[in-house]
């Protein structure tokens, strides 16, 4: 049987403490490394059920366990071409409790698929 601890605070032996609310609220609830060129694929992820390729540089990322609403915080970065210093521009749209849309452009603001795109979600799970 797995053990279970119910606590409000974690404290190290040295006396440093942190409220468990920081641990629960501060942890990323989902993250993904996605390959968007050639054969699209999820390279690595947490709490992601799948990705829909909506078109060039336009991906819908879906959660396995939904967030409580669409107001969570997203961060990202991307690599447009493999081993190539080509700048990319990224943005998010339509964040819902179960998914978000991640958009990508090249430096000329033309929609562009990414060799790799990274994103992370922080907020409350349902």
């Amino acid at each position, binding site marked *: 049987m*797995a*053990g279970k*601890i*119910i*606590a*409000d*605070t*974690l*404290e*190290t*032996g*040295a006396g440093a*403490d942190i409220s468990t609310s920081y*641990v*629960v*609220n*501060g*942890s*990323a*609830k989902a*993250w*993904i*490394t996605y390959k968007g060129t050639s054969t699209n694929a999820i*390279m*690595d*992820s*947490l*709490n992601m059920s799948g990705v829909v390729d909506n078109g060039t540089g336009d991906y819908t990322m879906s959660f396995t*366990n939904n967030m*409580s609403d669409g107001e969570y915080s997203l*961060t*990202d*970065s*991307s*690599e*447009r071409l493999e*081993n190539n*210093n*080509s*700048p*990319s*521009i*990224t*943005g998010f749209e339509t964040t819902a409790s179960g998914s978000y849309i991640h958009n990508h*452009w090249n*430096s000329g603001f033309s929609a562009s698929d990414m060799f*790799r795109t*990274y*994103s*992370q979600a922080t907020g*409350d*799970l*349902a």
Partner: protein
Amino acid sequence: MSTVITDNLTGKTSAGNVTITSEGGSATMQLQQGVAKHFINFDASSGTPTSQDSFNVSSITDSATGKFGINVTNNYSNVTYSLAGYACGVNSDTFSSDLSLGLGTNLIITTTSGVYEILSYATSAYRDSKHCDTQGFGDLA
């Protein structure tokens, strides 16, 4: 109110799997997978990147103007970890119309499990920015 005093949290059934209950109470997730495994805030506005704050980062390599290698102390277990990045401020805290702000100015190239390159790009050129922030999520070795 209760407090757990400990230096380590280790899963009982599986050492690398400590679960936490979601804020809404309807889901659980693996604690180890959700925490950032490294972060750094560095200032490159002088031309030499200087760490302001960091976790699990051993050093910064100044590859070229606006190009920096981030060397982690404890390596990831693979090269598929997920990265976030942000850079702003060319040479100072003052916003400049010459500067493109935001995540879109960054390009990150993952190279190995222990180092990756972050690029700060604005207005058709790589720039040594005042505020460079990056974080990583994934499995440590």
